[in-house]
């Protein structure tokens, strides 16, 4: 415990303070080296605190973490070393959670609106009230719906969530009697899950076995910056580069990951399909597909010749289905030369990367992110990009594209028995998001209307189609900020008679609320739990409350439900409370919950019981870490790790129609035909309705579609590229000064500001220079940003990260919080609301053009 203190040398030259301030002082040299050297003195030990396990929901990496607690304060964050997923590493934005929790701009107690006129320029006139009064108001509104037999006009919006979500998200609307539980999922990723589902039956994010791979293509994914498993990849990339793994990034902008890759392929926005087709073409034409996975020609020769069809009967497939159909219908003409003209990446590079990738396979993978497919016509890109893994046999293979080994947990208890006649009837009404209508198939899990169309709800409200909801609860969400074409949400939420917002900060959506119900922060102030995969493992973490809530805040997933149930019971509607008391007993003691905190604890205990209770473990088919009981589990940090991944388990055992990996998707055929039949029409008509151009058999194979972009090229010459921000915590960290201090950690961006990046050539043509304040004008809106010339972009494009442009949220996030002046602008103000309709996904990429003018 030593540190230095000056060893004062007697007789050293003493410089007067007067000289010190002047230049003389600055020029003064040491007379001896020793003069400035000091010796050690004792340093006291570091302050004693405790590292308490928690977990982070700042993005969907969902890392297991620990928080350092000193005298009841959380002062540091680190990765939990016991997790086999993030392995003790944690990304930069996790540290920002401290500033989220200790944010003086948080909502400190419930508030009610006093100005009942709603609108962007109305002052809501919020005044503080008690939780009792707040819940009384909310319960009254729900009772009114029940009295008038219009419980379907209740709606629940969910944003980010924990494992306990289904209590508030699913059971509460059902017991009240509403079909409207609307999640955020389709502004998150659904098109990215579409491809893996309609090729291998997996509607989920994939894991990628980077530890064992030799070749990685990051496609529209920026894993060093944003989802997935950022903490893990921040570490793994260095190891991969050291070990000689080749890394290629396909992205229209020079991303964080592009900077750490050997090759950057700057595909034109929305043209990912062309590039994928050409790579598939090369892999087949060069004879480099996986014989083990995809099979071979019966004569052992390669008959894939550009421009020529192949006789179906000459090829025998193993674990795949439809490779010949894919070639004949689509790939045979999709040469790299064709693609070069379309996607802007030169043919030689396409060929080289495709060949190298296939030669490294099966220890090779295409890591797909949303960039390649959350586009209006991106569903087939999602299939195509993922299918490259299928061609080379890296699907479910060591070093390839794998899935996960989720823990088998209990579900939230079924509320059916507590749904009275009204609830049964009204919960069968149509949902507000138009899922399953002709133009919104949202084919999650193969089912018409199986998925959510989050951003469509604003239109549903504005058109009052199918009706106008009256009482809405939103939690952990901010759709007025996070959904494209935000002005629709501002108008839509103005139409809602009563909106209760469970939220930490006064957000853009809160501005339209009647009640603000301040929320706990998920990492420290409430119990929390999620499971996530990465690094070939899956982990599950359950965290305790590690600090006392900073303000008078409550957990929206459990405590608020309890308070609501109590109030409804007081007013004569007892079903919700009965449901809670009957079904949420402590699984160890059988004790009924008597308050929201107990409900929180018992809910997590119930959900995770198959992991911590040995008697339930085998029965549920769990694998991985075992525990003696709940206490043992929580004493070990509330962290479960799966066993290592089992490769090749899915080969010819896929939950697709054919059980094979489908290049010709019988699974999609069934889903599309089902949807067409429901609407008495043809698949061709459905595709045309969904803005696709394909006809006939092309509907069932990955194929090229010209991107659909809003804004004609004359008026709006620049394609807009959205990027994610390293520190954004899903749009919720703008009020952290560390977010602003390090905003330039996103290549090309600026501190405390919002940059629109443009190739210097385009800037020169427009007569614009660095630092100019410019208007970004799209077909649906305008925004302000600071111009930044940047060579990491193709001429004809502009790029801007998502995360600034808050006019609410707090004094740091907004330029002027009191006067609702945003810091920069929100990309969603200028982004048109459009969709990849087959998945219901919102289109964030390759979907519109803008023009830039000096402001």
């Amino acid at each position: 415990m030593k540190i230095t203190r000056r060893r004062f040398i007697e007789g050293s030259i003493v410089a007067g303070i007067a000289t010190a301030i002047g230049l003389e002082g600055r020029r003064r040299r040491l007379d001896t080296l020793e003069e400035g050297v000091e010796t050690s003195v004792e340093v006291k030990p570091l302050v004693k605190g405790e590292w308490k396990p928690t977990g982070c929901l700042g993005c969907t990496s969902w890392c297991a973490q620990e928080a350092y607690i000193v005298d009841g304060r959380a002062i540091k964050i680190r990765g939990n070393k016991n997790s086999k997923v993030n392995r003790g590493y944690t990304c930069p934005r996790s540290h920002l959670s401290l500033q989220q929790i200790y944010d003086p701009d948080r909502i400190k107690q419930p508030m009610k609106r006093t100005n009942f006129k709603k609108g962007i320029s109305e002052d809501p006139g919020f005044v503080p009230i008690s939780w009792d009064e707040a819940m009384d108001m909310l319960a009254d509104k729900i009772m009114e719906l029940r009295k008038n037999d219009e419980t379907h006009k209740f709606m629940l919006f969910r944003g980010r969530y924990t494992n306990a979500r289904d209590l508030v998200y699913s059971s509460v609307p059902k017991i009240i009697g509403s079909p409207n539980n609307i999640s955020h999922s389709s502004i998150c990723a659904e098109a990215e899950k579409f491809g893996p589902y309609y090729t291998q039956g997996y509607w989920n994010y994939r894991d990628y076995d980077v530890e064992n791979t030799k070749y990685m293509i990051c496609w529209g994914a920026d894993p060093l910056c944003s989802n997935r498993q950022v903490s893990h990849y921040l570490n793994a990339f260095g190891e991969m580069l050291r070990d000689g793994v080749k890394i290629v990034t396909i992205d229209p902008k020079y991303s964080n990951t592009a900077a750490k890759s050997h090759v950057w392929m700057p595909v034109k926005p929305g043209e990912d399909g062309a590039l994928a087709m050409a790579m598939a073409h090369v892999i087949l034409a060069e004879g480099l597909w996986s014989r083990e996975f995809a099979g071979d020609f019966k004569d052992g020769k390669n008959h894939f010749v550009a421009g020529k069809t192949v006789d179906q009967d000459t090829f025998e497939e193993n674990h795949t289905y439809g490779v010949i159909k894919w070639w004949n219908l689509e790939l045979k003409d999709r040469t790299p030369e064709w693609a070069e003209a379309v996607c802007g990446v030169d043919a030689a590079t396409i060929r080289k990367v495709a060949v190298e990738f296939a030669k490294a396979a099966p220890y090779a993978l295409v890591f797909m992110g949303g960039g390649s497919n959350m586009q209006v016509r991106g569903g087939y890109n999602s299939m195509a990009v993922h299918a490259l893994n299928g061609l080379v046999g890296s699907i479910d293979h060591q070093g390839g594209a794998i899935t996960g080994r989720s823990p088998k947990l209990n579900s939230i208890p079924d509320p059916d028995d507590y749904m009275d006649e009204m609830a049964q009837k009204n919960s069968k009404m149509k949902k507000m998001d138009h899922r399953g209508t002709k133009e919104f198939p949202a084919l999650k899990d193969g089912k018409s209307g199986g998925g959510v169309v989050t951003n469509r709800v604003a239109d549903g409200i504005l058109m009052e189609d199918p009706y106008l909801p009256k009482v809405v609860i939103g939690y952990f969400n901010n759709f007025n900020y996070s959904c494209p074409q935000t002005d629709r949400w501002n108008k839509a939420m103005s139409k809602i008679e009563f909106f209760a917002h469970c939220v930490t900060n006064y957000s853009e959506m809160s501005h339209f609320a009647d009640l603000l119900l301040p929320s706990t922060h998920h990492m420290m102030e409430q119990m929390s739990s999620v499971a996530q995969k990465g690094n070939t493992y899956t982990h599950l973490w359950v965290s305790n409350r590690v600090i006392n809530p900073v303000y008078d805040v409550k957990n929206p997933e459990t405590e608020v439900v309890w308070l609501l149930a109590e109030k409804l019971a007081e007013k004569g509607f007892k079903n919700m409370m009965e449901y809670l008391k009957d079904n949420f007993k402590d699984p160890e003691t059988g004790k009924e919950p008597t308050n929201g905190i107990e409900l929180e604890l018992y809910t997590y205990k119930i959900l995770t019981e198959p992991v911590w209770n040995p008697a339930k473990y085998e029965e549920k088919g769990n694998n991985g870490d075992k525990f003696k009981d709940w206490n043992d589990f929580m004493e070990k940090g509330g962290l479960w790790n799966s066993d290592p991944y089992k490769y090749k388990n899915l080969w010819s055992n896929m939950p697709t129609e054919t059980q094979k990996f489908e290049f010709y998707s019988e699974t999609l055929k069934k889903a599309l035909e089902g949807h067409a039949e429901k609407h008495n029409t043809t698949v061709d008509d459905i595709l045309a309705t969904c803005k696709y151009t394909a006809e006939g058999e092309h509907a069932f194979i990955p194929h090229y579609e010209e991107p659909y972009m809003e804004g004609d090229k004359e008026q709006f010459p620049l394609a807009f590229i959205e990027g994610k921000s390293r520190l954004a915590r899903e749009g919720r960290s703008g009020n952290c000064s560390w977010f602003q201090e390090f905003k330039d950690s996103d290549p090309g961006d600026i501190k405390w500001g919002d940059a629109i990046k443009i190739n210097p050539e385009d800037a020169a043509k427009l007569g614009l220079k660095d630092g100019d304040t410019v208007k970004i004008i799209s077909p649906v809106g305008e925004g302000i940003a600071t111009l930044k010339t940047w060579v990491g972009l193709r001429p004809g494009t502009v790029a801007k990260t998502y995360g600034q442009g808050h006019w609410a949220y707090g004094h740091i996030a907004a330029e002027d919080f009191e006067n609702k002046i945003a810091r920069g602008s929100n990309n969603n103000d200028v982004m048109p609301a459009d969709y990849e309709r087959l998945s219901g996904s919102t289109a964030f990429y390759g979907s519109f053009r803008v023009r830039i003018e000096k402001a």
Partner: protein
Amino acid sequence: MAKFGMIIDLEKCAGCTACSIACKNENNVPDEFYWSHYITETKGEFPNVTYQYISTLCNHCTNAPCVEACPVDPKAMYKAENGMTLHNAERCIGCRACENACPYGVIYYNERGKEVFEEWRSGEAKALTEKVGGEVIPYYNPDRALTYDGIRRENVVEKCNFCDHRVANDEEPYCVDVCPANARIFGDLDDPNSEISKVLKEKQHFVLQPKAGTEPNVFYINKFDEKE
């Protein structure tokens, strides 16, 4: 006595800035001060582009111009026996000579007449800290005060101290600890068996502004962005 230094492996570094954020966290560093920071540069012409990211901090130079420039006696900016360049805020007269002398721009000055963390000293922010504890800021790290002012006063400079309070307690500097890429090696340059000495012996390395003659003790190996 040890002579401490650091290596930053730019191949491992992913440019995430966890080091710089964590540094603010550990050392209670106010906004617009960057004990730990970075230099970034996007170069070339589309599509042949590279992005370089070099993490920066005090170089703890062997020939530290900041120490030479410090006019106070005894010196406010001084070299410790273990090679660290440290600052004694009590002695500091706020003349900024060190700041002017440093060729790396890693020394920051707390303006005279302006309270540090001013935004935390009134209203709801102040009330929050009073409620939860801490000092000035609610996530205040008391460790920093073991060897330095926990939060520095106005009219003094401040800079990276290699987390001398942690090192004295056998912990690594916090930037080393938090780096998810394990890109930093901290250790004793005088010990031939330390990892840092071995890596420096084995690998080509460079320092910033070698011509300044400062003999920095922060070394860099490899390259951040290496295209084919």
